[in-house]
């Protein structure tokens, strides 16, 4: 078949197709909704960041001098709630995922565009109610809302916060539902399951967790709210209830929720590693299925949060074993990424720096997770800074770095402009250094016995805390720089080509920024996910590979 070219792309794209506030607030375009999410998760990230700053400031000195213990309880609780429910969970799926899931499979939009918009409004409503709770007086239960403290004893705004979290959960359910249906039914001709980029597999696995886990925490928080409101009870020991039941139901979602945060990040990293090594990913199907394995195993390990919560010792042993088992698919990914780098043609652009940082930090986070999965060690470090450091290595070192890497990588596609590469590399380095300085000392402090969730601590831990607070300020600067130059680049950045990285993925085969319908003609996919063709075959916009005919559309 002969190749043919479609006419040069018009200047109309999804950003300038329509103007005005209404065209954004009522949009059904997944790309615009992705940007709405991008803006709102960034907003919540900075609110959560302010609380993080307060925590680090308080912990500079061993005495509880800056914040009272009550205020400190609220500050760390609110840091956790905002960061987890309103940043980490939606960050990658609802912004990058929303933008890319239809594009990577050659669809015009997600299967349910209106539901997609609805999910953003639900997210916003949940967020507003939560912010109301914070302004009205805050909440001090820890992000885990453990009963009976949350149901009976806490004098803070548990109910409003619970309602906020409950509502925002539905936005996550709807996003997951949309992704699953889209991936099943909207793939372009020739886009088989095993030709999908690994980003898609990761998002499919994430969506599974979203639809299976989130409803459970929704009903749990609803029951908790009623318990607080009307003194009914299934968690309160006063009516024969079992507070540990709350922990079971809560962690049944909230442990898999960790994988909602990390799986999309892994998807981003698979893209970055393969594309910046210009090499097919090593062991495609292993990486793809390890995402599903993590999603499935992830539902069977929640009990490792409850080794000291009166859980049966046999249950503890089984949960410990399964938690070790979930490390296997994660390790498969790390090994395969590393193997992909081998003899690759690696370029150290900003996204790749974040990806390499991710591999190192995720490995540390994962390995320390094994310490915590081991029953005896866990008893020693339960509720210490060791745990805090561990999950920040996963959530910040993992998810946040992948999010930033992905944002830079797809920025030309999203905004139509290049970000300044020099500043990008510089800030990636600052983030890496700042992050490690913040959280590495916490492993030591925690292992030596510094408990979490106190505003005062024994003086011998001060050196670790000063290091940590110093690191946090570096990290803060490192995170502020990209905000500044990304916003700057939207107006002043170099105009991006359709395919600035010269990659085979479908999202690079349409103009930057894409038109509202993504592709002028429905593409027919004849290539594998990471099939690096000679650059001349990829560079031209709208030129399709051999075999693409009008009949195939």
């Amino acid at each position, binding site marked *: 078949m002969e190749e043919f070219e479609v*006419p040069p792309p018009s200047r109309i794209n999804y950003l300038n197709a329509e103007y005005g506030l209404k065209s954004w607030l009522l949009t059904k375009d997944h790309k615009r909704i992705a940007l709405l999410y991008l803006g709102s998760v960034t907003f919540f990230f900075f609110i959560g960041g302010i609380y993080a700053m307060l925590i680090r400031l308080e912990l500079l000195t061993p005495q509880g001098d800056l914040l009272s213990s009550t205020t400190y309880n609220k500050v760390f609780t609110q840091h956790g709630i905002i960061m987890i429910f309103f940043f980490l969970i939606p960050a990658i799926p609802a912004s990058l995922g929303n933008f890319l899931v239809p594009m990577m499979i050659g669809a015009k939009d*997600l299967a349910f565009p209106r539901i997609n918009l609805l999910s953003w409004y639900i997210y916003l409503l949940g967020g507003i109610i939560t912010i109301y709770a914070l302004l009205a007086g805050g909440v001090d239960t820890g992000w885990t809302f453990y009963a009976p403290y949350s149901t009976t004893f806490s004098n803070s705004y548990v109910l409003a916060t619970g309602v906020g979290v409950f509502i925002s959960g539905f936005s996550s359910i709807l996003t997951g539902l949309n992704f*699953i249906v889209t991936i*099943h*039914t909207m793939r372009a001709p020739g886009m088989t399951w095993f030709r999908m980029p690994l980003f898609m597999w990761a998002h499919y696995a994430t969506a599974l967790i979203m639809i299976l886990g989130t409803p459970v925490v929704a*009903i*749990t928080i609803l029951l908790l709210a009623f318990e607080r409101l009307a003194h009914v*009870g*299934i968690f309160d020991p006063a009516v024969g209830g079992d507070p540990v039941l709350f922990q079971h139901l809560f962690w049944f979602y909230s442990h898999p929720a960790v994988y909602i945060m990390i799986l999309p990040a892994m998807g981003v990293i698979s893209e970055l590693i393969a594309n910046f090594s210009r090499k097919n990913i090593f062991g495609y199907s292993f990486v793809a299925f390890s995402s599903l394995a993590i999603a499935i195993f992830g539902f069977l390990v929640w009990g490792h949060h409850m080794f000291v919560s009166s859980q049966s010792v046999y249950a503890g042993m089984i949960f410990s074993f399964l938690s070790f088992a979930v490390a296997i698919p994660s390790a498969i990914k790390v090994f395969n990424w590393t193997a992909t780098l081998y003899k690759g043609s690696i370029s150290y652009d900003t996204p790749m720096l974040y990806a390499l940082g991710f591999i190192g930090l995720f490995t540390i986070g994962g390995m320390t997770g094994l310490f915590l999965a081991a029953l005896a060690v866990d008893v020693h470090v339960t509720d210490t800074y060791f745990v805090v450091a561990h999950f920040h290595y996963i959530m910040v070192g993992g998810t946040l770095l992948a999010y930033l890497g992905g944002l830079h990588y797809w920025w030309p596609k999203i905004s139509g402009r290049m970000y300044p590469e020099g500043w990008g590399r510089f800030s990636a380095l600052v983030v890496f250094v700042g992050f490690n300085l913040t959280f590495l000392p916490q492993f030591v402090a925690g292992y030596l016995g510094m408990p979490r969730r106190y505003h005062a601590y024994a003086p011998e831990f001060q050196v670790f805390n000063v290091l940590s607070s110093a690191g946090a300020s570096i990290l803060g600067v490192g995170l502020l720089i990209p905000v500044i130059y990304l916003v700057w680049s939207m107006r002043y950045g170099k105009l991006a080509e359709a395919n600035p990285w010269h990659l085979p993925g479908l999202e690079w085969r349409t103009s930057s920024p894409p038109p509202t319908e993504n592709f002028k003609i429905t593409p027919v996919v004849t290539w594998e996910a990471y099939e690096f063709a000679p650059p001349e075959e990829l560079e031209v916009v709208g030129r399709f590979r051999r075999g693409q005919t009008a009949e195939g559309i």
Partner: protein
Amino acid sequence: MAEIYATGHEASHPALQHHFENMEQQREAGTLGMWVFLVTEMMFFGGMFFAYTLYRYQFPQAFASASNHLDLTLGAVNTAVLIFSSFTMAMAVYFTQLGRQQLQVLCLVLTIALGLTFLGIKAVEYHDKYVDSLIPGTLIPSRPFNPDVHKFHLLPGASIRNVEMFYWIYFAMTGMHALHMIIGVGLLSVLVYFSIHGRYSPEYHSPVEITGLYWHFVDIIWIFLFPLLYLLGRHLVHGG
């Protein structure tokens, strides 16, 4: 080249949304979407079923005593009503696929009527509980949980606190179920409106089908709730 841009929508049905290639794809997406949604519903109710199972195992006497106090007749009638409504719903889908518009409207209206009957009977049951002060905690602040212990056949070893917990689980589960019924009646009313205007046809019937899936699901939840809440443990009281 112009015809390339117009492809995909050659024989487009007015109900075809722009981002789908054809009606078949749109129908498939809608149906799968409802199935996925029902999975989330299962997990949502699952949390409550789990709590029920746990406490039924922990407090068998209290749960049997409280369960025995529910009105078996009203529960059984409601079960029959719901099963029959599932039948009329299935017939509504069937007649839509055949293009028999009047029968389709009739079946949808019947389904709504049966759904409302169920909710009415449920309201009578709730009212009985209200009269007996069996509404747990302070859900009704003016009438906290305070049953007449003489009217209540408490099995040995049963604590009234655990009876209260049973009633909370009962109200939480049946209340959540009733909420789903109300939403279902709302959806059906929209369907009736559109089907009177002749919107659904053998070519385009997925809204009826999808709402049917939802209706059957809500029905199935009740099929589990009825034996668990009304029937299990009756032999402990009646010595059967």
